């Protein structure tokens, strides 16, 4: 039996510590992990909680991230609560097994502390690994600060383990900017947190010997398509459960999350769409630029997967110019948010807003207020001219010659 951990009403935690406490409160049975910056402290803290008796679980310190996810899938299939954490290259090594986890419908929770992908090797935050996760069949949630890293971890278990969903969940947070920056976090007590998440009883557990189960069968062209379609169907519909969990959490804590968050959107004409810690910086920029008479707003997403097409379109239906901010190398295309948000808007809107794409912050490059104000001014020019006054895609904050594409 795990010892009780006394928490204050407000704790000063960074994003990693916040995630670790959520895993502790969920009383995760097995964590299998391999260290990688900047996610390392999450599992280190878990190990310390275990050493001090605050968790009664198994910590499997494997030899690679691929093995970490392999052990997690085995442990999850066996029948219990399982979680891990990783970043960047480690996540890339894991990706093969992520498809197995979602395909086998094992409700794991993975903390993905977002970081750039090499080369050049870089330990700092961007969304390259988050973008790499997008077709893996996992639900992908985005937290913007340590409080949210904590809250989303608690909610992740409840979403993943819901029998209407049974899909593994990634909780994203920005490397260093969120993971290593201490802020005030209001935690639930251990009892409240556990009560919120609930007991977990796995369906078709391998350790249920009364009903031997085969996990990970082969299915060729006669059945593979149906399996993938079923996963897609349940992922697309999982927003219902996600919203329910967001509502329950709001009732419990007063902290209300939305799948699509709107900031100053009542009369907004020019809007930034972003993910991660930049959302909060953009909100400050929007407030500031309104002093110049520019009607600025911010739209951000809490779920990268399932992608909330309708909600995004609804949030952006009356605006004149939109900038999608992508923090990952577009690698020969427009950025992912540009493509996905753009399609959502054009598909569902009678008006035709002017769309542009800004690539920023790769490898931990700061996204400054000045950058964001500049984007709002560009958008304002687009809105006034009712056409693109700048190239469709621009790299912002990049040294040297201006980089832009149409």
């Amino acid at each position: 039996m795990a010892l009780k951990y006394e928490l204050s009403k407000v704790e000063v935690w960074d994003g990693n510590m916040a995630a670790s406490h959520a895993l502790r409160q969920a009383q995760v049975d097995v964590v299998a992990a391999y260290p990688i910056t900047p996610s390392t402290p999450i599992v280190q803290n878990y190990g310390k909680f275990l050493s001090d008796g605050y968790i009664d679980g198994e910590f499997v310190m494997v030899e690679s991230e691929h093995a970490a996810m392999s052990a997690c899938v085995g442990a999850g299939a066996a029948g219990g609560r399982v979680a891990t954490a990783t970043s960047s290259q480690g996540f890339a090594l894991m990706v093969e097994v992520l498809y197995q986890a979602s395909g086998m419908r094992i409700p794991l929770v993975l903390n993905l502390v977002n970081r750039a992908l090499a080369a050049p090797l870089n330990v700092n935050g961007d969304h390259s690994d988050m973008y790499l996760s997008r077709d893996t069949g996992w639900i992908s949630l985005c937290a913007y600060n340590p409080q949210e890293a904590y809250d989303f971890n608690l909610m992740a278990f409840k979403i993943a383990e819901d029998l209407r969903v049974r899909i593994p969940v990634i909780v994203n947070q920005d490397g260093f900017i969120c993971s290593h920056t201490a802020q005030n976090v209001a935690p639930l007590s251990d009892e409240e947190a556990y009560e919120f998440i609930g007991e977990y009883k796995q369906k078709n557990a391998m350790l249920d010997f009364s009903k031997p189960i085969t996990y990970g069968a082969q299915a060729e062209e006669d059945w593979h398509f149906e399996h993938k379609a079923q996963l897609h169907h349940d992922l697309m519909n999982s927003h219902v459960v996600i919203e329910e969990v967001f509502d329950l959490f709001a009732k419990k804590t007063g902290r209300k999350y939305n799948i699509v968050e709107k900031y100053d959107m009542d009369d907004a004409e020019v809007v930034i769409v972003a993910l991660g810690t930049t959302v909060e910086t953009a909100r400050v920029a929007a407030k500031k630029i309104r002093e110049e008479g520019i009607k600025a707003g911010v739209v951000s997403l809490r779920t990268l997967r399932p992608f909330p097409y309708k909600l995004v379109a609804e949030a952006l239906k009356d605006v004149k110019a939109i900038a999608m901010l992508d923090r990952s190398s577009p690698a020969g295309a427009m950025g992912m948010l540009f493509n996905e948000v753009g399609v959502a808007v054009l598909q569902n809107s009678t008006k035709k807003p002017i769309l542009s794409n800004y690539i920023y912050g790769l490898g931990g490059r700061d996204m400054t207020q000045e950058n964001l104000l500049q984007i709002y001014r560009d958008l304002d020019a687009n809105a006034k001219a009712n056409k693109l006054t700048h190239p469709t895609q621009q790299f912002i904050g990049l040294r040297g010659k201006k980089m832009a594409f149409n």
Partner: protein
Amino acid sequence: MTKEIKNLKQFSRAAEKFEGANLLCPGCAHGMIIREILNAVDGHIVIGNSTGCIEVSTAVYPYTSWDVPWIHIGFENGSTAVAGVEAMYKALSRKQKYTGDKPKFVAFGGDGSTYDIGFQWISGCFERGHDLTYVCFDNEVYANTGGQRSGSTPIGSSTSTTPAGRVSYGKKDKKKDMLAIMAAHGSPYVAQVAPNKWKDMNKKIKQALDTEGPTFINALSACTTEWRFDCNNTVDIMDLAVDSLVFPLYEIIDGHELNITYRPKNIIPVRDYLGAQGRFKHLFKPENEHIIEQFQKDVDKKWEMLQRREEARV
């Protein structure tokens, strides 16, 4: 709980956990090995299986040949999959959420999964001391993908990626000594077995499963398709392998105590074993005869080494 199989009658009546309904090739030794392992277990057993011939021929949705809990994840990680199950068993039994008997945790993989792509995962599992038994179905080739060379393929073998030709005698490199490597991990028990020597195999499987900690079994598995022999000759070919000492049967306890468990009454020449298989046919051309000689020398040297180690108890 494990059990000793006393006679073939008992063996033939016990195989209800692995169904005969599977897609293994006629004459494949894999099925024999699986039955001999499952028959040695009376209680619960959990199997993690790497991708390979076994996986693709026994778990084709919506069918399964397994009447025991079984999981397949990828080509490389059958060991870690079952290590995950074992970790969950430990957590849940401590919390009294699992109250049944302690199961046997077993990982299956072919030689590709074991000697090559899955090696890191196995090494990690053994270093961490999971209570599992890893069984390699050693047919010395990537049979599932069409007969490419693996780290287990012997020298001189003609495979689809090391084909014998006008200027090549086939694979240039020798077989990796997997048993020595696994013993060097500090495993409490490692052994080579051959399903044709089923009494010896049953004894070793029992010991591997009953020993706490990570144990390793390397099982000879003759492959009618890639070794190229008639499918009714599987047992004969494996008899040749163990009687020529190409595949010696021995065990190593606690990394040092080596016991030879089968000494052929009449040791047959290696060339008799090689000559019975299509994969070595080209070695009998005059220009390749030196490879047969080399093969015989290597086998003699290994046998000498095994005997000396057994005698010296080191």
